[in-house]
């Protein structure tokens, strides 16, 4: 039954909520990428655009405009995109999809302070509206260092690129993490962007934390009856959230040095994961309700009373990792020999709510650790009474529920089972669930979801600036404390971090999981 007069838009007779085969295809629109020559753009954005088109989710009239300081023509740009897609796209290369896309590629050469270039950009966009039918809808993807934001955003405003036409079309902006490097800079950055774009037109992406992962986590927590009753301080002993990388800083010296692991990863990624794990059930799963719950958790976080005992930091030294000899942090190219930047950071946090009082959340991240893994381990209290003797349960650890974020996304449940035989002996076993064997074409990359959300105008699950500011409020005192305390403790590459991190947990009578 259709209710006449309720909706302003005429109802599309070909659409039906029950017809779930039909995907939401974004309306006409275009994407303008600043910093299109960067790694991210070639390895992630361009392939994501192609993968979306290949899955039939991009509108027929789609425009992709590259903006960078290169003497390129449209053909050169097209060739670059072509190569990037061939190398990095998730789905197979199809000529017809390529042809659909390639007709909408444009390139604008210029600097961020070059008025002529922005004039040309406006011209190009108008031309796309004309030829491709992008309908005046354009998203600007700022794949550039934050210090250029004011320039670019200012230019967009000055050249009238930020304001939609008066016909219901839209202009949106996508900002990459890091969202500042402390509370103050985050606020400044936000001021710059929000002066030009309204909050609902600003999309912040944390590419570590895809929407798919967030939704998987929400589904696990709130679609099931058996987890929620034990999801509190009565049963949970502590929570460990880990994001470990096996790589070093690679070519990111310029960005990384002076920023460090805590600002790079804990501020956004780990605190977001923590908020998702710890939050109360939102009243609905729209972006707003979700944000409210996450903000409540972040606002209730408290730091350890003694920052020297409740935090740990390290810096990788040279060593062997995965069969190859690797350089220490200070030996990497473009890193000063006396750099005090931490490449490993761990923090113990508490959450002052009835649900979590007394349950520590241990967050750790690092580069050049044992292996690449991101996971959340909820470790449960021991049974209050064990009707077995000590030798029987010698090998029984604490029950744990591990949410594996990557690689091999899934859930592991760890519990005790009897070892077969006449003797009573209990040992830990794993029960594993993986999100499917190897999902061929269906598990979209974080960037695909994001670009689609931007084009559809769906409010993203990514944090808005309140959350970003709350996260900095948590982290700022820690980073300031470290700044006063000299150099971080070295740890050999390929190990699980500095001894002080182990001591930090040992003081609480706990130990890090080996992920």
């Amino acid at each position, binding site marked *: 039954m259709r209710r006449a007069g309720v909706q302003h*838009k*005429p109802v*599309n*007779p*070909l*659409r*039906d909520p*029950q*017809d*779930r*085969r*039909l*995907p939401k*295809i974004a*309306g*006409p629109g275009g994407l303008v990428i600043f910093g299109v020559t960067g790694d991210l753009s070639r390895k992630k954005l361009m392939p994501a655009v192609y993968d979306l*088109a*290949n899955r*039939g989710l991009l*509108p*027929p*009239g789609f425009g992709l405009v590259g903006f960078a300081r290169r003497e390129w023509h449209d053909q050169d740009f097209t060739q670059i995109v072509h190569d990037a897609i061939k190398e990095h796209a998730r789905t197979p290369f*199809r*000529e*017809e*999809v390529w*042809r*659909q896309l390639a*007709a909408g590629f444009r390139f604008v050469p210029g600097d961020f302070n070059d008025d002529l270039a922005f004039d040309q950009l406006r011209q190009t966009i108008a031309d796309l509206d*004309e*030829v*491709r*039918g992008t309908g005046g809808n354009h998203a600007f993807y700022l794949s550039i260092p934050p210090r250029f934001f004011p320039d670019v955003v200012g230019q967009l405003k000055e050249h009238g690129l930020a304001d939609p036409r008066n016909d219901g079309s839209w202009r949106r902006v996508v900002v990459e993490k890091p969202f500042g490097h402390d509370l103050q800079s985050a606020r400044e950055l936000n001021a710059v962007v929000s002066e030009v774009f309204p909050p609902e037109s600003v999309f912040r992406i944390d590419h570590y934390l895809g929407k798919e992962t967030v939704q998987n986590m929400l589904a696990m927590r709130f679609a099931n009856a058996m987890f929620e009753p034990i999801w509190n301080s009565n049963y949970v002993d502590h929570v460990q959230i880990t994001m470990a990388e096996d790589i070093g800083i690679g070519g990111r010296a310029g960005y990384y040095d002076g920023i460090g692991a805590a600002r790079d990863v804990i501020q956004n990624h780990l605190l977001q994961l923590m908020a998702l794990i710890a939050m109360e059930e939102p009243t609905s799963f729209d972006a707003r309700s979700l944000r409210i719950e996450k903000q409540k958790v972040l606002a209730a976080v408290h730091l350890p009373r003694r920052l020297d005992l409740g935090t740990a930091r390290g810096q990788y030294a040279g060593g062997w990792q995965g069969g190859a000899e690797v350089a220490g942090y200070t030996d990497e190219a473009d890193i000063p020999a006396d750099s005090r930047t931490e490449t490993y950071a761990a923090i113990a946090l508490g959450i002052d709510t009835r649900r979590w009082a007394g349950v520590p959340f241990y967050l750790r991240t690092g580069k050049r650790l044992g292996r690449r893994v991101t996971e959340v381990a909820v470790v449960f209290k021991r049974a209050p009474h064990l009707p077995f003797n000590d030798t029987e349960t010698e090998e029984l650890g604490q029950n744990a529920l591990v949410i594996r974020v990557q690689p091999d996304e*899934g859930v592991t449940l760890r519990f005790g089972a009897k070892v077969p035989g006449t003797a009573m002996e209990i040992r830990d076993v794993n*029960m*594993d*669930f*993986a*999100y*499917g*064997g*190897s*999902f*061929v*074409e*269906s598990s979209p990359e974080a960037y695909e979801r994001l670009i689609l959300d931007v084009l559809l105008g769906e409010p993203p699950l990514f944090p808005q600036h309140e959350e970003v500011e709350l996260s900095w409020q948590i982290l700022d005192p820690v980073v300031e404390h470290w700044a006063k305390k000299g150099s971080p403790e070295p740890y050999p590459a390929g190990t699980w971090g500095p001894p002080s991190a182990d001591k930090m947990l040992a003081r609480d009578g706990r130990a890090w999981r080996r992920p």
Partner: protein
Amino acid sequence: MRINLTDTNAGAIAAELVRGRRRAGSPAMGMVLTLIVVVDEKQADDALAAAEEASKEHPARILGVIIGSRQPASQVDAEIRIGAGTTGETVLLWLRGEVTGHSESVVTPLLLADSPVVVWWPSRAPDDPAAEPLGALAQRRITDAAGAPRQKQQAMSTQCRHYSPGNTDLAWTRITGWRAMLAAALDQHPAKVTAASVRAERVSPSADLLAAWLTARLRVPVERNTSRGPGITQVVMRTGDGEIRIERPDGVLASLTLPGQPDRPVALKRRSVAELLAEELRRLDPDEIYEQTVASMVKIEKQKAKD
């Protein structure tokens, strides 16, 4: 790993599956459904390859039921494939003799506990899949009118007449791309459609379904015209200020025309059976829109018979 069992039964096959899994170190297997593929010897290889490809997206236990001749003594042979290239487990069952009439007895003990069951007939399908014993085991019954050895058009109308909830046909899956594009076109150009037409090869169950769907949704007369193909070549929706038209002359790249807007190329490739199957397995509840379309098709055919 492949294990062959000759002249066997379901119990022995089930035991071998457990053993095979244990030999592989009891890896975690997140199999989400049992997919029964009913084929004859000739199509078996292609069909199973497609099923295994689809099982990469939907880890499944695949039971290939290969119906042999009904003549000699009753015998069940089996081949079990675990690991190596498959995400789940595949069992091929060769049935001949009397047991070909009782294939459900072989399959029942091999279904995954508690998980949905899907039956797929890649080629010849029973007239009423839900009434067939194998079909009755399943939540989802997938036929393929275009895969019928002959009289595809008739195969489609037979399926339409015997629809019951849980049935679908790959002819329907094949037009998802068209339907999505048409719906998106109407999103972009929201105008009242006054008439429509579908142009396709003379025999094309998919084109017939598309026309039936448009008839049901738009409630306007929909012409079904003939072209030389491949498949569907053109769909037009007439509106007050011009035509919404999608044209696909080569079966690969289409072009979309909207009134007052530039023409745009649209990739609209005909998909492989594996991709179609993967789409089918994404949702296992009855497809209400297919039900509407099928009803519309039956109505159109009745009307035609009257004229």
